[in-house]
């Protein structure tokens, strides 16, 4: 049946020793459990992201979703914080990585943590999941349609958004990639390029591409939701994390 859990807002130490908040969902039984860091997309801490975080707790993970926009608007509502972050140019990659290291340290400090940490991100969070997996020692990473991993960003993009393909040689863990064949960012050609590079480097990865699905197919509250792709995608995610985040 359904697992008992708690879900609450906690504080942890992120980049530059800044204290920021995170949504933390966890089973109430004893564990030990693997840890999953859920990376929100640009709109930030929206309801879908909170539901996703609780989903991982329901499946037996310590799930932590840092508020990457906290510094731009401390104490503000999540949508106001997202807007303030965008107006300030978005989340810098270096600051994001510092916050990830802090989130990992938080999970590792818990008695009920089994020592394994995975990350998952959607959209801009997918790009950040790849960045984290190439910059920090992790046990598993899931990139759900992360754009601007491959190829040059279009003119006018914030300088924070730079391509990451050159980091693939540093991929620290198995990578699950889930992409829609109708997506343009990343396009099927860009996904091909990323996969070819991972193969060339001998990096462990598993990519799945869904026909009839575009960008954001996991978003159940949006017109781009594709239930068949989303249901299969969730099955793949839990199978993947089950293999690499078990104690």
């Amino acid at each position, binding site marked *: 049946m359904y697992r008992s859990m708690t879900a609450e807002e906690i504080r942890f130490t992120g980049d530059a020793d800044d204290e920021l908040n995170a949504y933390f969902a966890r089973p109430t039984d004893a564990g030990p459990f693997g840890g999953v860091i859920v990376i929100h*997309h*640009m*709109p*930030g801490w*929206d309801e879908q992201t909170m539901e996703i975080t609780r989903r991982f707790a329901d499946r037996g993970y310590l799930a932590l979703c840092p508020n990457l926009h906290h510094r*731009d*608007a401390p104490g*503000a*509502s*999540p*949508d*106001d*914080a*997202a*807007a*303030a972050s*965008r*107006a300030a140019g*978005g989340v810098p990659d270096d600051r994001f990585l510092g916050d990830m290291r802090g989130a990992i340290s938080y999970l590792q400090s818990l008695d009920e943590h089994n020592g394994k940490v995975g990350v998952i991100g959607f*959209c*801009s969070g997918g790009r950040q999941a790849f960045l984290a997996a190439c910059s920090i020692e992790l046990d598993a990473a899931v990139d759900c*349609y992360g*754009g601007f991993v491959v190829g040059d*960003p*279009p003119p*006018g*993009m*914030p300088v*924070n*958004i730079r391509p990451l393909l050159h980091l693939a040689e540093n991929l620290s863990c198995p990578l699950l990639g889930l992409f829609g064949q109708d*997506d*343009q*960012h990343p396009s099927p050609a860009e996904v091909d390029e990323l996969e070819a590079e991972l193969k060339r480097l001998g990096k462990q990865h598993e990519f799945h591409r869904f026909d009839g699905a*575009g*960008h*954001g197919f996991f978003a159940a*509250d*949006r*017109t*781009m939701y594709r239930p068949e792709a989303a249901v299969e995608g969730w099955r793949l995610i839990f199978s993947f994390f089950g293999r690499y985040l078990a104690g």
Partner: protein
Amino acid sequence: MCSHLTEKASVSGSGKGAGGWFRLSHAVTYFDHPYHSPYEHTLNIDFVNETEGPGARVAVELTEESARALVACIESALGAARPAMRDRASVAPPERA
């Protein structure tokens, strides 16, 4: 996708947000994922006062079609305004921030 592309204009006027009326300093505009609307991308406008914190914000999220209809409405309303109705202090176009 998250487009990250953002346009920002200095504006003069007032907006009504969750805390009541406040003076505006900027309009931040972007075509990207919405927070509330059930669409993939919307034309989003944040009317803000940057000196009053992130809560001083009036946000709208419009479909592309709606946003273009709004542009036409704005142009029409301004075109119909008799010269005598115009506040001389508000005649200059907003500066790009």
